[in-house]
């Protein structure tokens, strides 16, 4: 099955591992993630005022691109892109006047007809059935305990979420299908600080400290998540956390597709090189990775 896929900017840089492992593990499930031609940055955050149309141009332009290739579904990996594309899609589907204005402004494009559905990759997997993932597991992630981290935009606001905003289970279900254990982290839905990482990294460090320490204290070996911004705040920013809280103990972070690739035995496509806290020692300790397989040095600035 071919699916048009929207990467978003950061999957081409810090999230390279996310994309690599996603495409490889999707292929095992007979899903071919085909990058949307001529996609544009969706704008990351959704515009929240009623009188702003300009910031909906980019998301709608992407939806036009989907219709241009005669498709009706668009899959994303990044939670932020998912939320923004979905929200703009809903806005124009419910407001024909706004859609008309946007279409007229983008007169060089075909008009958006409102026929595209935006999906998160996790939704696609759930629709397929996690038992299908279980069938493809070549290396059950036994002995690995994970703390699923949802963050914000995967489940909030409710109308645009993929699971229950108070008690989601989709990541838990996925992880269990791969053979790993999960813990119940009360901070699994707590915001990582999001865009504050640019001008208020100490705020992000405070939030990360709580989220990660809870995970470790409750017995998790690592976190699993679905967003490059959360990954940056919870992985790369561990350096800031350690600076502010010397008693902090580092903990590795995985994108959910990296765990899928690991469980499917796709050792060449894990994309772990850019994971800031090196997860290799953990994987070796749990005998989840062939010690002789090629390991590239992680890029730490």
């Amino acid at each position, binding site marked *: 099955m071919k699916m048009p896929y929207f990467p978003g*900017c950061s999957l*081409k840089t810090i999230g390279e591992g996310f994309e690599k492992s996603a495409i490889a593990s999707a292929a095992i499930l007979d899903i071919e993630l085909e990058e949307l031609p001529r996609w*544009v*940055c969706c704008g990351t955050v959704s515009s929240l005022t009623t009188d702003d149309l*300009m910031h909906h141009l*980019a998301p709608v*332009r992407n939806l036009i691109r989907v219709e241009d290739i005669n498709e009706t579904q668009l899959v994303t990996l990044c939670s932020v892109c998912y939320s923004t594309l979905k929200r703009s899609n809903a806005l124009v589907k419910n407001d024909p006047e706004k859609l008309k204005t946007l279409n007229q402004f983008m007169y*060089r494009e075909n008009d958006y007809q409102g026929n595209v559905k935006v999906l998160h990759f996790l939704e696609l997997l759930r629709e397929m059935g996690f038992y299908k993932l279980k069938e493809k597991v070549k290396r059950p992630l036994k002995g690995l305990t994970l703390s699923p981290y949802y963050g914000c935009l995967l489940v909030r606001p409710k109308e645009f979420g993929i699971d229950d905003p108070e008690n989601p289970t989709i990541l838990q279900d996925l992880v269990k299908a791969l053979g790993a254990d999960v813990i119940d982290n009360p901070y699994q839905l707590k915001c990582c600080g999001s865009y504050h990482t640019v001008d208020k990294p100490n705020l992000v460090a405070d939030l990360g400290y709580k989220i990660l320490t809870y995970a470790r204290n409750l017995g998790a070996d690592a976190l699993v998540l679905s967003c490059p911004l959360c990954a940056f705040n919870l992985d790369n920013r561990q350096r800031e956390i350690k600076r502010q809280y010397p008693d902090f103990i580092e903990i590795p972070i995985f994108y959910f597709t990296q765990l899928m690739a690991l469980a499917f035995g796709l050792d060449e496509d894990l994309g772990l090189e850019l994971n800031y806290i090196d997860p290799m020692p953990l994987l070796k300790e749990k005998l989840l990775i062939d010690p002789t397989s090629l390991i590239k040095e992680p890029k730490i600035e």
Partner: protein
Amino acid sequence: MRGVNLEEKTETEKMVRVYIMGREFEVPATLNIVKAFEYAGYRFIRGIGCRGGYCGACATVYRFKDDYRLNFALACQKAVEDGMYLTILPFVPAEKAKYDLNKLKPRGTVLLELYPEIARCVACNTCTKACPQELEVMDYVQAAIRGDIEEVANLSFDCIQCGLCAMRCPAEIVPYNVGQLARRLYGKYIAPQAKLTYERVEEIHACVFDEELDNYIELAKEDIEQLKKIYVEREIKVG
């Protein structure tokens, strides 16, 4: 008067009405915007350059009577039409980032590092609409955000740095500066190098050809016919 077609003569005399900075003038229809200004008595000291569609100095905006739409062109390349509202843009204020090309790494993020304001792009496509060279400006700014230097270089290849995109961008980005940096990085670090050229330059530096050249120079003074003969009979390697 030999060979003059009477119909052609009428064509040259056809006049159109244009509005130059608000004032109405009648100018011959075959003139371009620059020449129309000069016909009306204006003299350019800025906003003018090669007059050949290459330097980007005369980029201008114009409208038509009773039409709200804004149009863009190089003044030296655009023929006047009846009802044009004209002006000249003497200069586009923009600053190039300071960098030493030799010290830059062709990492994808270097464009965002030197021009972080490209993160403000809203993909509105106004820049593309403003480009007189019909380049896909929005696409190359988006490629710059993604870090795809080669794509930026390819899409911005024909950019003449006229500045219209920068004047129109609501996010206050100067796309042509970003394109220029990408092309420089591409040419220096990414494009396949012409190995034979480098080898030849090294040979020249090593004075491999000096003696031969000196001999030919002497021969040119003494016996130019001999030199010509040597040239005509030279061995040409094919393939």
